[in-house]
C-alpha cells in the first residue's frame, strides 16, 4: 500500500522480493545497496541467522528521485525463503505494492521454485491481494551456473501471466537493477491508475 504524503510531497512504495531459500533475494538487495550513492539510500537492515540466512526480513530504503514534484521512495524488503518461516513471510507481505519473484535457475531447485510461487499466491490471497493483478515481475537468477534450466522452460512453468521476466546473476549484479526498474515501473504505473 503506497503512502502519498502531500505535506512532505513524498510517495512511498513497498516492494517485496520473494522466492525459495538461497535463491539470491538478499544478494539482490546487497548489490543494490553497494551500487547506490549514499544520498539515495538508507541503512540496510538484515535480520538474519548466524549463517546469514534471512530470519525475518532485509530492508533497504531507496530514494529514486522526483516525479512531478514528489520524491519517490521505495522500501525494498526480502522474505526468509526457508519453508518453515512461513508465518514471517505473511507478515512481510502486508501492504505490498509490488512483488519480485526471484527464481533459482538451478535444475535441482525446480520444485522449490514452484512451491514458493504457490506459497506466494496463497499468502497474498490471505492479505486480500491477487497475484494475477498486482505489479509482479520474475527474475531468473543464477544464470551463471552450468546446471541452469533453460529460460524457456522456467518461463513456461513460472510465468503463466507473462509478466516482465529478467535473467540475472545477483552475485555480479547482472540484471539486478533491470529487475528493480521493471517492478518500479509497474508500481508507478499502477499508482497512475489510482490504485
Amino acid at each position, binding site marked *: 500500500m503506497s*503512502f502519498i504524503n502531500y*505535506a512532505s510531497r513524498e510517495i512511498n512504495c513497498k516492494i517485496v522480493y520473494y522466492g525459495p531459500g538461497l535463491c539470491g533475494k538478499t544478494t539482490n538487495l546487497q548489490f543494490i545497496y553497494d551500487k547506490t550513492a549514499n544520498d539515495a539510500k538508507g541503512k540496510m537492515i538484515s535480520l538474519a541467522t548466524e549463517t546469514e540466512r534471512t530470519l525475518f526480513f532485509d*530492508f533497504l530504503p531507496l530514494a*529514486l528521485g522526483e*516525479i*512531478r514534484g*514528489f520524491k*519517490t521512495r521505495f522500501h525494498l524488503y526480502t522474505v526468509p525463503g526457508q519453508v518453515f518461516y512461513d508465518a514471517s513471510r505473511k507478515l512481510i507481505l502486508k501492504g505490498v505494492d509490488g512483488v519480485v519473484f526471484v527464481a533459482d535457475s538451478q535444475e535441482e531447485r525446480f520444485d522449490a521454485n514452484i512451491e514458493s510461487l504457490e506459497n506466494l499466491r496463497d499468502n497474498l490471497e490471505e492479505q486480500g491481494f491477487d497475484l494475477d493483478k498486482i505489479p509482479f515481475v520474475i527474475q531468473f537468477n543464477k544464470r551463471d551456473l552450468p546446471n541452469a534450466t533453460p529460460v524457456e522452460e522456467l518461463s513456461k512453468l513460472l510465468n503463466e501471466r507473462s509478466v516482465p521476466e529478467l535473467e540475472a546473476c545477483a552475485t555480479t549484479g547482472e540484471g539486478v537493477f533491470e529487475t528493480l526498474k521493471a517492478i518500479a515501473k509497474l508500481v508507478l504505473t499502477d*499508482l497512475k491508475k489510482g490504485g
Partner: protein
Amino acid sequence: MLGPQSSLVMYDEEFQRISQLLEKLLRESNSKVIFLVDKNGQLIAASGETANLDTTSLASLTAGNIAATGGLAKLIGEKEFSILFHEGEKDNIHISIVGGRVILVVIFDQRSSLGLVRLRVKKASNDLATVFEDLARRSQEQSSSSSSSSPFAEITDDDIDNLFN
C-alpha cells in the same frame, strides 16, 4: 475503513494537526522522541530529538515488531497486543496502536516514567485517532469526487525512466 489496496494519503492540514499532537505529547510526557508509523513501516511523522536517529530504520523495525507480536497474539487467541514496552539501561520504548491502523512510538529516559507516558499516550491516542478518521474520510471524498486529481495520473514512461539515470 480502507481496503488493503488503497493508498494511505496525507494532506497538509491533517499533517499539521498530527505534528501538533505529537509536540504536545512530547512535552507533557517528558519524553525524548516520538514518532508515528504506518503499520507497513512507513514513517508518518516524528518529533523531538530525531537529528541523530535513523527514523526510517526505526519505522521499519517497529512495524516488524508489531507485526510479529500481532502474529503471536493470534496464535494464543488474542486480537493483538495493543501496547509493547521495551526497557533499556538508559532509554525505554513504549509502542502502542492508534485507531487500529497506526503505531505510536515514544522513546523516554529517566526524566519521565512508564506511568506518565502511559497516561499521556492514552489521551493523545484518542486525539490522533480522530485525525486519522478525518483523514480517511477526506481521502474517500477525494477519490470518489475526481479520480484524475491524482498527481500521478499524468506520469509518462519517460518520467519513470528518468528516475533511473
